């Protein structure tokens, strides 16, 4: 205890302050009274006499506003009766009077850390005030509904129980009024108002009704089939699911294993097929798109193919035209050459060289193929009758000389012409074969030798040709 004047610590048994000498006898008495009321308040609170406790603690604070314990306890009692704001007010003042080592910190932290609860309390207070307004406006039914909501949110709100009890009394519902008043009395054993309401309700009820309205003790019933627990709380039947140990024992392990297996099976039979179907559907769409694209390209390819064929036909047609034109040109050239040869012969019959030069320009193949007019062939044959023998002799001599001198190219040219002008000259053909053979063109040589054997059998040249063919065959084997 400290001196109210100088703040020095007072000594017990001495009525004067050891520091300033002030007489503190009355002051000590006042502090003692404050403590006495605090003790009373504490005792009453311990037996849930909230009304009495509040009165005592207020008295204590009237004697000593700095009695922190009394103020904190008053806040706690207010909180218990549902008066949260009054409780907070006491704890805030307490905290301001003693900043350090104050249990009010813990109470306030508890409320701060649970804002949802604080919000619920505030809602109940607002609804209670609304109910009170309804009562003043004579809307008692609405007030009862609101108060029921309030009590479902905060069953410890004593004033709400009392107001509800009063409303039931006024409505003539004495049994319910008694129940509510009894609940209020259970929460606050010192509530004179609750006792009065109970007395009033009981005076209006007969003994049987009193017995029926007696709140039954909260007795938990054993679950019959293990799924719910039913028990009576006041006049409410509470049905609560049983909290059975789901995980425990070998059964639980098997249950988990079976659950996992069922889960996998469900995914295989339900989820997986759907997934596969989805992928298949997606792939099917892609295949359709690719098929369409492929069809379009195939159609395009067909179109191009037809175009190519058409162009090929055009090319062939043009080539035919070109060949025809070339053929015409070669016929014209052959005719010109023949006329030149005829002119040279008519000019000087002995000038075989000029005739030969002109005839060399004629393509013999045209005559053999019959690709030229019959008049041309007739004129050619007539000229050949006149100069063919002498030309053949001249070419044979030149060719033979060249063969002898191993000038095979000249020999082949002249001997071939000699045979073309005189196809009875077996020697010209035989040496032509030899010229090809010696020049290394064995394939042509074999053809020539075959021709010699076929066209001139039983001749020396044919025998020689057979020998040469045998040599070629031996050499190739």
């Amino acid at each position, binding site marked *: 205890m400290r001196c*109210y004047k100088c703040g020095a610590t007072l000594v017990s048994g001495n009525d004067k302050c050891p520091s300033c000498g002030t007489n503190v006898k*009355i*002051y000590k008495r*006042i*502090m003692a009274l*404050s403590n006495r009321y605090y003790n009373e308040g504490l005792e009453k609170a311990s037996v849930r006499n909230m009304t009495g406790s509040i009165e005592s603690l207020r008295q204590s*604070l*009237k*004697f*000593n*506003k*700095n009695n922190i314990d009394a103020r904190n306890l008053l806040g706690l009692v207010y909180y218990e009766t*549902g*008066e*949260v*704001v*009054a409780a*907070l*007010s006491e704890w*805030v*003042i307490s905290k301001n009077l003693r900043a350090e080592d104050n249990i009010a910190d813990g109470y306030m932290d508890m409320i701060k850390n649970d804002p949802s609860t*604080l919000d619920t309390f*505030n809602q109940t*207070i*607002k609804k*209670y*005030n609304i109910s*009170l307004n309804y*009562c*003043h406006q004579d809307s008692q039914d609405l007030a009862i509904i609101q108060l029921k909501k309030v009590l479902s949110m905060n069953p410890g709100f004593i*004033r709400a129980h*009392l*107001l509800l009890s*009063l409303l039931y*009394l*006024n409505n003539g519902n004495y049994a319910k009024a008694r129940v509510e008043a009894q609940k209020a009395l259970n929460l606050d054993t010192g509530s004179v*108002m609750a006792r*009065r*309401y109970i007395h*009033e309700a009981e005076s209006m009820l007969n003994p049987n009704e009193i017995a029926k309205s007696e709140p039954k003790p909260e007795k938990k019933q054993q679950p019959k089939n293990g799924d719910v627990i039913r028990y009576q709380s006041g006049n409410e039947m509470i049905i609560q699911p049983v909290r059975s140990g789901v995980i425990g024992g070998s059964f639980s392990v098997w249950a988990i294993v079976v659950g996992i297996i069922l889960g996998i099976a469900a995914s295989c039979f339900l989820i997986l097929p759907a997934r596969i179907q989805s992928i298949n559907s997606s792939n099917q769409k892609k295949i359709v798109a690719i098929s369409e694209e492929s069809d379009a390209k195939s159609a395009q390819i067909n179109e191009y193919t037809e175009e190519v064929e058409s162009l090929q036909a055009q090319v062939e047609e043009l080539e035919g035209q070109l060949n025809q034109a070339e053929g015409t040109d070669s016929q014209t050239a052959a005719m010109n050459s023949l006329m030149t040869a005829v002119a040279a012969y008519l000019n000087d019959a002995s000038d075989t060289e000029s005739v030969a030069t002109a005839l060399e320009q004629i393509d013999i193949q045209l005559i053999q193929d019959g690709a030229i007019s019959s008049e041309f062939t007739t004129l050619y044959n007539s000229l050949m009758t006149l100069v063919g023998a002498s030309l053949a002799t001249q070419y044979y001599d030149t060719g033979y000389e060249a063969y002898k001198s191993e000038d095979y190219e000249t020999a082949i040219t002249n001997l071939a012409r000699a045979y073309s002008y005189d196809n009875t000259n077996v020697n010209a053909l035989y040496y032509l074969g030899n010229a090809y053979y010696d020049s290394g063109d064995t394939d042509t040589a074999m053809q020539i030798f075959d021709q010699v054997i076929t066209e001139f059998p039983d001749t020396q040249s044919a025998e020689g040709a057979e020998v040469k063919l045998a040599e070629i065959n031996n050499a190739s084997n």
Partner: protein
Amino acid sequence: MINFEEELKKFHPSLEIEDAEEIIYNQDLDDIGDVVVKLLKDAKVESGKADR
């Protein structure tokens, strides 16, 4: 017999959270110790006037 109207007057609106600040500031915190000290001061002043 309870008179409903009279009984209803005993019920007052509960304090809401929004009112907390005002309640705290307006609370009369004087205790008997303060009153006694003030009385003693006044008594001293009165006795001083009487001596003059």
